[in-house]
């Protein structure tokens, strides 16, 4: 049971000067003398060196701060993978270059600063405050700033926020426009028929989720959460047992051909490591090597089809664990307009069905009036559409010309554009969210309530739920001083395990009095498997007991009903909504996975889309410019083809290159080469990080990996 271990003083996070000097001593002569020349103090000796080509060659520091001095003297870069003794070795989930990374330790590492990730971080810090413990929390975000990659409708149900930050109104959260009217239209080419609205948005608000997340980010920082935007988590780090110990950020400064540029920067390993109870430093140092840890936590809150989350789900077979179905998705394309004052009705909410989508394609549009004359309009198209010639982007442009929608947008200007996929699988597709070393929260697991078309509140709640248990476990680890108390702890915990959360909280309080000296030796052996076992089950149990599950359970049949067609779908939905009210005895299953649903091109004919008029509808480059998307040009393409020949051999002849149509950013283009043959060109720089290609490619050939941190769209009012 080799596991990683680390001790830190309670008050400081990460590499403190004192601990760094300790590490430096441990590492001994492994640090190049010429590197320390430029920095005076010991803490800097662990700093990653600059990439000046004129100075010392680019090299990262040995990431062995965790592993002590066993191999200190021989700690050259390439030798770092083997470490002696009973300690675990940080093995790469996807093995990569030999160069080790510098590592930073936190108690909890959260990937993604979205509603779920930030809720988890804030809740954790709140619990820390309540119990008087201190846990370090780190949130990494691939966007250039918090909120840059957040896009959503959004009609917000403040249920979860009320639980998390009840004073949100006083603290000037950007939630001000309450829903004033709720309309539901069925559109045909020329007309709009009003239908009874199935939604109940009475106490909800029309917001910009990007702004709300930015506000939550500042709140999280007030609580002491460390948020690092501009750093993309690209690798999952595991130990010998296969449990996740943390993530590694992307290498930055890699040129297109893979070589290192002048400003190459190796990624950093962020390890979720449980902290030792604060005691005197000497004991910490002694135990640093010997003690194994319990309760390391890495949370993945990457949003729908998160790249690392998908890897985790595959690796730990999380869908099979609870016999969940595959996830189904939809692509949402959205624009924010600034319209005429006279046409603006703050809080007006309109949803539509029907045109421009045909009967076989599930989807609909939304139009929400926000504050300051801004209007959010978008189209959501389910990605199990059959016609490979369908272009969701062009359908959206068509929608804006509808006689019921056109008058609202006339004389307005577009402020921003964006696109993102969202989950539509509901409860049937939620995987088992816990794996050894952490959990998946938010849309990465898929808690969106499809008929309500709201996923923000469930994502936030899922983040909050997990943390209660993380804290419980971590605190237990801390508390055991002497073996006697540890066995007492175990018994008490076992007793309380079957009870609900509230009692667990109370039991924590009673155990706190047992904390004395931080002798962890006895604790870990006893707690090891116990904690892991209870960790997994308890989160799952409480999730299923919470209102998230209740809500998703009621909503489970609406979306699968539409797999049978539009009319059956509406009929079943009506029955569900008015007759059974969510208590129906059956659970419908999803049809084929989205990528398998595409028919071959010869069974359909190309759709002739109208040319953009530059006033209401626009071409892709113009829209893309409005999304503030940018990536560093000179980096390897982050969209990888598992089989480079497949586009020209399968996608093009059989499906007529659907990726050139469903991608809302025109990343994929078939351009003729000199020989006249069409070849796939990937304009990775345009990527909006929507993940549609990862989902919809017929042979699942395209793999979306994360580009250099800081790139991607720059949403501010989405």
């Amino acid at each position, binding site marked *: 049971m080799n596991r990683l271990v680390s001790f830190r003083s309670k008050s400081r*996070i*990460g*590499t403190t000067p004192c601990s760094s000097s300790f590490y430096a001593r441990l590492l001994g002569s492994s640090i190049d003398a010429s590197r320390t*020349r*430029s920095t005076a103090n010991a*803490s*800097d000796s*662990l*700093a*990653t060196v*600059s*990439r*000046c080509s*004129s*100075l010392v060659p680019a090299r990262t520091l040995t990431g062995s701060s965790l592993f002590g001095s066993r191999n200190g003297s021989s700690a050259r870069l390439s030798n770092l993978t083997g470490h002696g003794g009973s300690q675990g070795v940080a093995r790469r989930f996807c093995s990569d270059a030999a160069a080790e990374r*510098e590592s*930073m330790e936190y108690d909890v590492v959260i990937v993604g600063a979205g509603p779920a990730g930030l809720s988890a971080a804030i809740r954790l810090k709140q619990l820390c405050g309540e119990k008087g413990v201190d846990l370090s929390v780190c949130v990494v975000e691939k966007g*250039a*700033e918090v909120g*840059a990659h957040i896009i959503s409708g959004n009609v917000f149900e403040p249920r979860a926020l009320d639980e998390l930050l009840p004073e949100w109104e006083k603290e000037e959260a950007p939630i001000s426009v309450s829903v004033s009217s709720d309309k539901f239209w069925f559109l045909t080419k020329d007309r709009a028929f009003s239908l009874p609205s199935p939604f109940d948005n009475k106490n909800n608000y029309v917001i910009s989720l990007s*702004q709300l997340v*930015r506000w939550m980010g500042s709140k999280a920082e007030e609580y002491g959460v*460390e948020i*690092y935007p501009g*750093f993309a988590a690209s690798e999952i780090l595991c130990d010998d047992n296969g449990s996740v110990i943390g993530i590694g*950020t992307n290498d*930055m*400064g890699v040129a297109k051909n893979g070589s290192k*540029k*002048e*400003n190459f*920067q190796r990624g*950093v390993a*962020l390890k979720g490591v449980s902290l030792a109870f604060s005691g005197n430093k000497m004991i910490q140092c002694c135990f640093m090597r010997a003690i194994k840890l319990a309760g390391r936590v890495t949370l993945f809150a990457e949003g729908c089809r998160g790249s690392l989350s998908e890897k985790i789900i595959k690796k730990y077979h999380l869908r099979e664990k609870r016999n969940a179905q595959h996830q189904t998705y939809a692509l949402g394309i959205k624009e924010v307009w600034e319209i005429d004052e006279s046409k603006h009705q703050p809080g007006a909410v309109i949803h539509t069905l029907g045109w421009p989508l045909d009967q076989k394609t599930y989807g609909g549009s939304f139009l929400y009036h926000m504050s300051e004359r801004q209007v959010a309009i978008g189209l959501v198209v389910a990605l199990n559409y059959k016609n490979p010639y369908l272009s969701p982007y062009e359908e959206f442009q068509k929608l804006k010309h509808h006689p019921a929608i056109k008058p609202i947008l006339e004389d307005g200007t577009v*402020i921003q554009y964006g696109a993102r996929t969202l989950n539509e699988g509901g409860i049937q597709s939620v995987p088992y969210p816990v794996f050894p070393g952490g959990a998946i929260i938010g849309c990465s697991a898929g808690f969106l309530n499809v008929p309500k078309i709201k996923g923000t509140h469930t994502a936030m709640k899922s983040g909050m739920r997990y943390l209660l248990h993380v804290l419980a476990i971590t605190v237990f680890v801390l508390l055991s001083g002497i073996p006697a108390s540890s066995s007492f702890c175990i018994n008490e915990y076992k007793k309380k395990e079957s009870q609900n959360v509230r009692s667990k909280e109370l039991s924590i309080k009673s155990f706190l009095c047992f904390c004395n000296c931080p002798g962890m030796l006895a604790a870990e052996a006893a707690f090891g498997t116990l904690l892991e076992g209870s960790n997994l089950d308890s989160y799952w149990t409480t999730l299923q007991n919470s209102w998230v599950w209740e809500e998703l359970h009621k909503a489970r049949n609406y979306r699968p009903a539409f797999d049978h067609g539009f009319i059956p779908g509406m009929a079943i939905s009506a029955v569900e909504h008015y007759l059974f009210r969510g208590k129906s005895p059956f659970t419908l299953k999803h049809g084929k996975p989205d990528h398998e649903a595409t028919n071959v091109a010869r069974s359909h004919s190309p759709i002739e889309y109208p040319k953009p008029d530059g006033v209401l509808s626009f071409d892709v480059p113009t829209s893309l*410019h*409005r999304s*503030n*998307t*940018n990536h560093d040009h000179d980096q390897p393409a982050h969209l990888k083809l598992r089989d480079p020949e497949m586009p020209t051999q399968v996608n093009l002849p059989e499906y007529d290159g659907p990726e050139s149509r469903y991608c809302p950013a025109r990343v994929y283009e078939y351009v003729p080469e000199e020989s006249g043959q069409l070849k796939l060109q990937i304009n990775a720089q345009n990527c909006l990080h929507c993940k549609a290609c990862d989902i919809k490619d017929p042979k699942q050939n395209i793999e979306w990996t994360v580009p250099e941190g800081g790139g991607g769209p*720059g949403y*501010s*009012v989405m």
Partner: protein
Amino acid sequence: FDQEKKIKNRESFSFWIPSQSNVCCPFKLTLSSLIVARVEHLSPPAKMKIMVAVKRVIDYAVKIRVKPDKSGVETQNVKMSMNPFCEIALEEALRIKEAGLASEVVAVTIGPKQSIDTLRTGLAMGADRGIHVEATGDLFPLAVAKLFKALVEIEKPGLIILGKQAIDNDCNQTGQMVAGLLGWPQGTFASKVVLDKEKQEVMVDREVDGGLETVCLNLPAVITTDLRLNQPRYATLPNIMKAKSKPVKKYTPEELNVGTKSDLEVVEITEPPKRKAGVLVSSVDELIDKLRNEAHVI
């Protein structure tokens, strides 16, 4: 100048001692001259401070919108980051420091309260200290240059590096004004900077309209950086964390005795006129007609 002074002192010292006609003096002389020589050798190379100006501007990738009342550009809810030319300036300063030719890099920013974020980014890249002059409202280059001069009198750097211009106003004036106010030599649009510590001068390759011009400046000097000078480094996670504890000194314009009221006033900001679609003409006569009557160019 300092070195000359020191040499003069030494010489005068050597001439002064023998006049006291002390037997031990020659011995003292050699020892003291040795010590002086020693001290001289150790102190100058490490002492130079570099001051770098950084500005918080709207991120270059963001699509700019003009405010409806035409008073300015929309800066609410818009991503801000460090001016790219300032990043290049900071990178150059850090390289000079890492080459051992300077002892300290001080990053300076003048702006509202949120400018501290830009300063932290600078500190994360590797600057040692930060100075934040908190000034609200639109600051024009002359006010910025005056504030800079006041700071230079406090900090006494040996070299000042700025970006050639800020991407929000494209003025390209601050660096030159700072040099003028201080009376220091300037090397603007630098695409290569080579510092010579012994001779206390710096060779700067300037990108000018006709090509590249190399100038040699005596220190202390002002350099403004152009795009091709270097490739700025990324701020790493550990450095960002360390930057939180690096010292930042705050000033206000009042403390520095500088008036920031400007003689310039922005009257209106409008978007450039939308490009009109081109027109295909069918004959030469039509072309002449259009050129004469519509475009009024002939």
